């Protein structure tokens, strides 16, 4: 159960629905039993309602806003075209495509979703193909691996091929035991 001094800083997030579901339930539970925090919440909600009175005070841009802006922008673009050599502009374009390709995976837009989905599918198909190849075309598939773990003296990984039914392999060969 949360205490009052833990709940009060969360009330603002509670109003904006930014809390996790668990925390939301905890705050709700506390509010049911605490009139002081409920009053605080009512005050904050009231302030929020008052602020939202100004929400319909909407302004629009003037008619020539876009035209003026585009005129300024086209001057900048023209200057850039005249001053920057063709090779640099080409490199810039290639860089842009590279950046777009690199980051489009991070964004949750439609394009990246298609990319992600197709790459995942391709990856899965490759994985299944490799697995089936390796299981069908291995002649000595009865051999199994035994990976010998690192010890104090041996600091590399050693892979040995042993028969699975050979239990006392090390003692027969008079090799030192790794347990000691």
């Amino acid at each position, binding site marked *: 159960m949360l205490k009052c001094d833990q709940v009060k800083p969360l009330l603002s997030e509670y109003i904006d629905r930014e809390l996790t579901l668990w925390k939301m339930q905890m705050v709700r539970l506390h509010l049911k039993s605490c009139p002081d925090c409920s009053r605080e919440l009512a005050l904050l909600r*009231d302030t929020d309602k*008052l602020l939202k009175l100004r929400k319909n005070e909407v302004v629009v841009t*003037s008619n020539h806003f*876009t035209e003026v802006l585009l005129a300024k922008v086209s001057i900048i673009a023209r200057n850039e*075209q005249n001053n920057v050599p063709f090779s640099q502009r080409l490199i810039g374009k290639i860089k842009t495509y590279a950046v777009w390709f690199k980051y489009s995976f991070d964004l949750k837009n439609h394009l990246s979703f298609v990319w992600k989905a197709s790459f995942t599918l391709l990856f899965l198909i490759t994985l299944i193909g490799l697995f089936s190849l390796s299981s069908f075309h291995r002649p000595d598939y009865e051999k199994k691996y035994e990976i010998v773990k690192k010890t104090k003296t041996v600091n590399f990984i050693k892979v040995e091929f042993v028969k699975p039914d050979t239990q006392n392999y090390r003692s027969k060969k008079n090799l030192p035991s790794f347990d000691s």
Partner: protein
Amino acid sequence: VRVSDEELMMRCRNGDISAFELLVSRYKEPIINFINHSIGDYHRSEDLAQETFLRVFKNSSRYTPKSYFKNWLYKIAANLCKNEIRDRNRHGLTSLDTLTMNEEDETPIASVLLSDHSQMPDFLYEKKEQQRLIKQAIDKLPETQRLAIIMVTYQNLRYDEISYALNCSLSAVKSLIYRARQNLRNLLIDLGVRESYNAKM
């Protein structure tokens, strides 16, 4: 299919002005409203909105689609607003909307000139007056608190988007908004806005 803002921005990087125009048409209204709520001066807001989009075009080569375009745009607009608020505080500038005729009569000049309150029904006048007081209270907040509360209330931005736009941590945004609401509540009670009184009772 709606082309994403990030893709348009990438085209913009390559000097495609029509892509830029589409971005402007998508975001000019939210941006001018955000700036207008922050500084409360329509004509200056339009200038700053233009400046915001110009900076977007000039710095398009620096934009990487690591973050959403919308957040990046709000970051630029918020920086311009911060500078404007600082300038106004330094030079003691006030917008025409908040100017008062004299100390006793607190009716703003602009609203007196533009509208005749004697013809206005009481509830409308009361509402207008309440909105003016709310604006006055918001203007008294420190700049980051002001921007954060405007973003969350009028622009419906999420806390993580605000943290990117204001260049601070998520926990800082949480405390900014909480403190802004507390300060506003006290300011509104001091200004005598009715609903706050009711809540206090």
